[in-house]
């Protein structure tokens, strides 16, 4: 049974009594709220999510209206996990974004059996594209657009990387801010969006309903194949620029919630993901152009898919060793040749020589 199979009264009864249990990816949540606008929005945004019978939950979330004098003048809300507030009180009109942020917070503060990176993840053909970017980088907008073009949504906020290096799904509504909402509505006028919330610290926020297929396939993991550092820049032409794997590792580590906490396992897991991926910086201003770059007829060649397949085939046939293996074996001739041509420039520059630390 899915959330959409419940009548409005059944949904309201479950949410107000705290007996609404739902699952996304590896996690089971219970949710309690009496806020009518949240009950309606939850029914829309989570309609395709399976409802579980009350029992075990990884996280017990509740969204409440605060009582007190202040709330008479300016209604305030709070989000709790197992009874513990996760934010300072917030304007009640921003309860829906705080529900989403709160559910994310439950995950990234607790799910340390995964390496968790602040990134969106989409999948096609079993291969995951990890979109790394800070707030305002355009990653969620691009994630939403790709999902609307048929890529499967794994997550729009938290890349969950299992110790085996595969990406677990956490498909939930995609949060979009002011300009992004308009960009997605222009990109796909049929996109199903939830209600907008004004007055958040990030301005107007609305959520794209996750596609049913992404919700149903949430148990399917994907292997890492591409890492994009997304960089929305007004008026910029769309451009895909290779990033070295070592620098990519450092940049992803910077965006991870628990890389340092996981220690050796975090390094090994992340190095494996970077090793398996092609790493690029994607600059864009026009959403349709960026999507065409990744989803158009030449995208496979551009993203190196065919090249990677050829490498894997050659490796299996024993006709060519992987580059990493060759280097471990000491076959680093190209690097030595480069150095021999210009030896001084390689070790005389203090700016490039300083070890960078994370």
């Amino acid at each position: 049974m899915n959330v959409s199979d419940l009548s409005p009264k059944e949904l309201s009864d479950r949410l107000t009594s705290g007996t609404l249990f739902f699952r996304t990816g590896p996690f089971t949540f219970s949710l309690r709220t009496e806020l009518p606008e949240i009950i309606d929005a939850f029914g829309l945004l989570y309609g395709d999510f399976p409802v579980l019978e009350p029992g075990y939950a990884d996280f017990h979330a509740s969204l409440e209206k605060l009582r007190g004098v202040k709330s008479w003048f300016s209604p305030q809300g709070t989000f709790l996990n197992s009874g513990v507030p996760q934010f300072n009180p917030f304007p009640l009109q921003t309860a829906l974004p705080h529900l989403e942020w709160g559910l994310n917070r439950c995950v990234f503060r607790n799910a340390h059996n995964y390496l968790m990176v602040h990134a969106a993840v989409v999948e096609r053909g079993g291969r995951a594209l990890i979109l790394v970017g800070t707030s305002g980088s355009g990653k969620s907008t691009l994630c939403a657009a790709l999902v609307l073009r048929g890529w499967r949504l794994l997550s729009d906020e938290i890349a969950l990387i299992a110790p085996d290096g595969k990406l677990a799904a956490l498909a939930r509504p995609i949060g979009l801010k002011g300009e992004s909402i308009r960009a997605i509505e222009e990109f796909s006028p049929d996109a199903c969006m939830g209600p907008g919330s004004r007055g958040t610290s990030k301005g107007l926020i609305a959520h794209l309903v996750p596609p049913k297929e992404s919700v149903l396939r949430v148990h399917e993991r994907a292997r890492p194949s591409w890492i994009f550092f997304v960089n929305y820049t007004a008026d910029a032409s769309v451009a895909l620029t290779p990033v070295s794997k070592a620098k990519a590792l450092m940049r992803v580590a910077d965006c991870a919630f628990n890389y340092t906490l996981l220690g050796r396992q975090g390094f090994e897991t992340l190095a494996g993901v970077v090793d398996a991926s092609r790493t690029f910086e994607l600059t864009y201003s026009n959403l349709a152009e960026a999507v065409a770059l990744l989803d158009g007829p030449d995208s496979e060649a551009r993203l190196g898919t065919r090249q990677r397949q050829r490498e894997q085939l050659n490796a299996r046939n024993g006709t060519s060793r992987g580059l990493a293996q060759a280097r471990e074996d000491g076959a680093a001739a190209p690097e030595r040749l480069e150095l021999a041509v210009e030896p001084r420039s390689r070790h005389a520059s203090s700016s490039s020589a300083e070890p960078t630390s994370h």
Partner: protein
Amino acid sequence: MSLAPEIKAKARTPLLWRRWGDETVVYNPASGQTHLLDLVSGEGLSCLQESFLDLGTLCERLAHRLDIENDAQLRSYVAMLLSQFEELGLLELEGVS
């Protein structure tokens, strides 16, 4: 500040390594830090994996590996590298009084 010439250094163990092209990433479990090293830094630390080396021997090995001249400029640069590695906790030292 550079290390005294009589001091020998060795890369702390265990360090976790990944090398991609000219660049190396090293994770130091003792500090929990990850370091991005360029070609010369990476090769320099790599030379120190097996045994304790003094500055002169390290320069010889590095010059050989990288096919570059073992001159005063290299020696000065490697001394600076060793100092940085030591500050980052990447080295064990021998001969420190």
